[in-house]
């Protein structure tokens, strides 16, 4: 039995190795949580940037040619777009609140950014964007702020847990 070694001398370096690996994993997780938390801010900033363009009635875009309009067809009625905006805002808020309740770590701000830009595009195509800009802007700010709040509270709680774990490892 020459390969038998004293267990006490073998355990110490292994536990040191585990601690180092754990510490690295915790640091990686902390970095991931910081990145996740910042996503909400990036989403909000991007939406404000898009809204700045929409507020100028998308003047930086070339006007739609008659040919393009003929291909796309008539714009949907403005009332229908507005009703769709109300329904979308209501369901988005309900979904965010339910995710908040379930403690989910998913950020859905990017898809909301797409939907909201779609509403800007529809109003622009119907030539009523200046009249309806503030409705889309208010909906977007509410939805994306709530998304940010949801991901931020999740990340804050997770970060606190990770930091407690890290401080226990440091002891």
């Amino acid at each position: 039995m020459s390969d038998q070694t004293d267990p006490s001398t073998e355990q110490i370096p292994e536990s040191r190795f585990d601690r180092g690996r754990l510490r690295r994993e915790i640091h990686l997780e902390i970095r991931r949580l910081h990145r996740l938390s910042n996503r909400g801010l990036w989403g909000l900033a991007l939406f404000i940037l898009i809204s700045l363009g929409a507020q100028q009635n998308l003047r930086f875009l070339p006007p739609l040619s008659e040919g393009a309009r003929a291909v796309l067809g008539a714009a949907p009625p403005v009332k229908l777009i507005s009703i769709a905006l109300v329904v979308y805002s209501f369901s988005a808020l309900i979904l965010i609140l339910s995710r908040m309740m379930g403690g989910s770590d998913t950020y859905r701000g990017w898809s909301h950014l797409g939907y909201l830009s779609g509403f800007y595009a529809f109003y622009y195509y119907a030539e009523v964007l200046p009249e309806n800009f503030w409705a889309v802007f208010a909906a977007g700010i509410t939805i994306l702020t709530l998304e940010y709040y949801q991901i931020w509270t999740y990340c804050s709680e997770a970060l606190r847990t990770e930091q407690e774990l890290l401080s226990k490892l440091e002891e």
Partner: protein
Amino acid sequence: MKSIAAKAVVPVALAVTGFVVVCCILLYSFIKNDLLNSSIQREVNLAGIIVKSTRHAMLQADRESLRNIIDNIGEQNGVEHVRIFNETGLVMFSAAPEEVSQLVDKKAAGCIACHSTDIPATNLGPMEQSRWFTNQKNHNVLAITAPIYNEPGCSTADCHFHPPTLKVLGTLDIGLSAEPLRDSLVTLGWRMVVFCIMVLILTVGGVCALLRRNILLPITNLVAYANAATRGNTDQPPPGGIDEIELIGQSLHGLALRLEKKQAELEMLRSKSREGAAVHKPSISSTENPG
């Protein structure tokens, strides 16, 4: 932000207020459009009444009566301008005398809708006939241009002659002050802002009041009870409030009573062992020192 109140109030207040703001903006937009449409419809009807009222004077080529009608309408409160011009754009009658015999720019707002193509349009919907602008007196004006169509009586009249092929003989242009409409919209806007603020206050206040009554106060009482129980005071009953808090309180009370009982038992055992030690000590000392 670790408190229950902040965690509960912020998302609810944000979601409710944001949604109410979106609905209010869209509602304001709908109401504004409805009010504008009804104003335009009223103005189109008014233009029709004026054209019908002047029909007889036109057929008779009674320019004096026509001038009087136009002047009287122009003197009415809220009428910013009223004029009739012929098919070439020459102002024939106007409430403002300096406009008479002036040519109207066909590219101006209110004219361009018909004159955007080489062959001018002769039929427009009420929305296309209307225009909203600020005049030289800095008044908001909602104006309508109503075409005066050729009729058999016009082309066959003895007094003056219009060819039967000419479809539009002239245009009546009437502009009414849009200040009352604008004032109504501003009032409506402020009422909606007040409504939003009230909803926000009610939501935040309601959630805070309910949280304080149902969660925060029972938790504070539970903390005070737990501290008292830790110090050994188990005389006071566990706090009530909501079922979950009552359950925790009862569990704490049970734990505190068991702890108290165990401590009493431990104390009793200790005193017994001390007594036992005291009884055995003299005998041990007597065996150690026999003489």
